[in-house]
């Protein structure tokens, strides 16, 4: 269950607009932020808030790239594989990431730190090859730069949040 506070603030927002359903993506994001991904329970909670059927929410949840229906790591790495990043060497970046993290595309490291997902052109072709980590862009990347970033994130991720 999402906390009562979150539920109430979402319900309030929903009640304040003419066509509640237009908020479905916002609500999915908010609930996903709480759980880390959109669990079955979350789909039902979103549906209830917006007076939709769980199936209606499900067909949106599975449609969008940034809604995760499975658990993901603390850091979600989206690797751009569209044509400019492809030309600038995205494949060697991906191989390196895969090797270093020990996971393939679509998987999460056993410690729950990193998930690796492909993404289509993210609109940073002037900084190719580029990736997103939790929606923040990094590029143009080299293997060395990538290693630095991963190390920093790992250290940051291991620091307990207060």
């Amino acid at each position, binding site marked *: 269950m999402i906390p009562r506070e979150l539920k109430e603030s979402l319900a309030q927002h929903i009640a304040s607009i003419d*066509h509640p*359903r*237009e*908020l*479905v*993506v*916002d609500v*999915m*994001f908010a609930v996903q932020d709480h759980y880390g991904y959109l669990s079955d329970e979350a789909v039902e909670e979103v549906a209830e808030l*917006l007076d*939709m059927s769980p199936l209606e929410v499900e*067909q*949106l949840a599975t*449609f*969008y*790239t*940034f*809604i995760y229906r499975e658990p993901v790591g603390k850091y979600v790495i989206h690797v751009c*594989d*569209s*044509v*400019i990043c*492809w*030309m600038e060497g995205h494949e060697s970046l991906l191989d390196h990431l895969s090797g270093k993290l020990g996971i393939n595309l679509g998987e999460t490291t056993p410690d729950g730190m990193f998930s690796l997902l492909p*993404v*289509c*052109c*993210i*609109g*940073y*072709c*002037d900084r*190719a090859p580029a990736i*997103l980590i939790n*929606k923040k*862009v990094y590029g143009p990347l080299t293997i060395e730069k990538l290693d630095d970033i991963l190390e920093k994130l790992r250290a940051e991720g291991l620091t307990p949040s207060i």
Partner: protein
Amino acid sequence: MMNYPQVLFQNRKADRIATLEEYRQSGGYEGLSDALSKASHKEVQQVLLDAVLLGRGGAAFPAGRKLMTVADDAPHPRYIVCNADEMEPGTFKDRVLIHADPHMLIEGMIIAGYGAQAEKGIIFIRPEYESAAIILEREIEIAEKAGYLGKNILGSGYSLDIVVHRSAGRYICGEVTAQLNALMGKRANPQQPPPYPTEKGLWERPTVLQNVETLACMPHILRNGPEWFKKLALTETGAGTKIFSVSGRVNSPGCYELPMGVRLSEIIEVHAGGMVEGSEYKACLPGGASTRFLPRDFYDIEMDFDTMRNVGHRLGTGAIMVFDQKTCLVAATLNLVEFFARESCGWCTPCREGLPYIRDLLRRLEEGQGEEEYIPMLQQMSKHLWSSYCAFAPGAVSPVESLITYFEDEVREHISQRKCPFK
């Protein structure tokens, strides 16, 4: 370096947005203020039509004409939607524009909103542009406080509110009718008109959808007049400036605001810093992934909607992706089709079934398992994709068709050598 007038990028800075004050100092909100106090909404439509402002999102539809298709007696509330989804591969001009001068877009939306007599404005933005979404929300609030948004704008009696709508990321959401479905919380499948969105769009109400760059042109047209706007172009048929986002094998990939009709060779050699060392120009996709490869023969072409159309090409979004002689265009096309196959909404059969089929043929060719008969098969399958509901599928096969038109020899080498000749 040629010194062309900077209109949309006049306040562009290296590290931050232009503030409302800076935008006003450069003449910002004067066009709106004049329009609201002196012109009827019909006159605004006419000025935009006279300026030959064509849609910068790729379709090149006249912006003034679009506003005119909203009937006088059409019901309210009406909607003005800014398409900031910008998911066409190679395209990043709208992101740069919002990060340079957000009030230019906001003023453009108010002008277009007035032209359509709309009460509600929505900016539809992709999740990868979260920083732009945050900027816009903040600047919308600042514009409201300054009296440019909300009730009774500048005492004119005209009212408009603007909200930012975040998408969760899917290429098809950039298509007009799909975007409307997405906004209404439905699966973003396109719908074949009629009814047209300007007649029955969001919640059955008239809805005008314009691209970021198109809207950003509007304040300047209102302030300086349609003749001035037309004269910005180097060609007779063109009008205004165009932001070209250049990427690929050039020394300085980035966004360049240049006159409409500037030559491709000049964009690459002068503005984008020339080809990287050891690279020669082989081809480019001139306006995103859904345009046709432009080979060496067109290297000096004037980049304008009309001149491109006259030679069977499209200017699209003006996103120029440059390929060199060392890049295999079969592999590049395979990558592009992979993108389209993944992003197809799957609603109609030719697109859902045809793209994986084409991808499979291209993959076999690239892996050296191609047969002679694959070439006519690719052509025929591409033709079938033109009978889909929306422009997604015809766009998706543009690289495939042009690959065979201009680079058939390269495709054949893959077949005769039983391998990719670039490997």
